[in-house]
């Protein structure tokens, strides 16, 4: 299963970015093989509006089945739901910690956005 984590870094020990749409990068982890891939979110960072929508399209096209982040706004959530991508929110400090919680079943799939847009 491919899972995208929001981050400002490029490795598992990097901090988990609490933002989804304006996270600098996504670390995509394959939970079966352990392979890690970095996907740039520059388009989302640069978007004047609709950063969450842009980011949701980016991860959906990357073929992930789940997103783990700090918070997810309503527009991003709608696009991710439509694309069949599950959303998990967590206060884990690092990507590795979030991955561990995901693997151990410690995260619950979000049923709706947990923040308004532009919450930061």
């Amino acid at each position: 299963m491919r899972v995208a984590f929001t981050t400002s870094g490029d490795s598992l020990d990097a901090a988990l970015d609490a933002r989804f749409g304006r996270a600098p990068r996504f670390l995509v982890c394959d939970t079966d093989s352990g392979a890690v891939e970095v996907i740039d979110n520059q388009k989302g960072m640069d978007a004047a509006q609709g950063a969450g929508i842009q980011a949701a399209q980016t991860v959906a096209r990357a073929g992930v089945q789940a997103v783990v982040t700090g918070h997810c706004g309503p527009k991003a959530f709608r696009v991710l739901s439509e694309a069949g991508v599950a959303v998990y929110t967590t206060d884990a400090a690092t990507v590795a910690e979030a991955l561990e919680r995901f693997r151990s079943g410690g995260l619950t799939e979000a049923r709706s956005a947990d923040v308004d847009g532009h919450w930061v």
Partner: protein
Amino acid sequence: MIIAVASGKGGTGKTTVAVNLARVIGSPVRLLDCDVEEPNAHLFLSGEASERETISVPVPAVDESLCDACGECGRFCAYHAIVSLATKPLVFPELCHGCGGCALVCPRGAIREVDRRIGVIEIRNADGIVLVQGLLDVGVAMAPPLVRAVKAKLVPGEHTIIDAPPGTACPVVAAVRGADFVILVTEPTPFGLNDLALAADMTASLGVPFGVVVNRVGVGDGRVHAFCRERGIPVLLDIPDDRRIAEAYSRGKLVVDALPEYRGHFERLLERTREAVRAS
């Protein structure tokens, strides 16, 4: 002549300059309040709205029975207002700029445009000043189409004063574009200087000639005047930091009516603006 009154920083006195200028310029004059998120020129003028018009932007509506999820609409839209990920498109009307491109590129004709209300325009005659005011609906974030609708009420040949929104972003560009001259109002403070520099660059890149009015002269320092000297920007008027002006403002009075000794200031501003337009 179309004069736009703008400023980088908010609260510098744009509306004060716009309404007083409209009063001294003579009839017929049209004052276009393009500060559609917070129009306030009407507070200084009498008269009730005689005309009211609803303004809408066209947004896409998808006929899902015709859509084959090709994704062309989503690829076209620069604002992520329509998204198609191998599924039926999702529409975010609040992000749509109403360009109609998605409907044009749709190979199946599955997209038509429907109106989405964004605000109203009110017109009133206030003692010889025709005030056209745009009022954006609460919750709407897309001001430029409403600003353009207000400007469409311009009557060629009439004196026109545009009260622009503050800042240097899209609503301001929409308000200022096409003016014969822009008056940038600022105050002699570090904030005023910083935002004047941004507004001057914006106005210059639009190719519209401009000059500066410095309000509340006496506070702050001399750096705004020094900046204008260095950049060769004409300072058209200094308005002193006079408490009586603030008091008149707080009572909704025009400065030129409440404090007649300032009438000459605004007449000089008008004359210098006309000279600058002729010279440009």
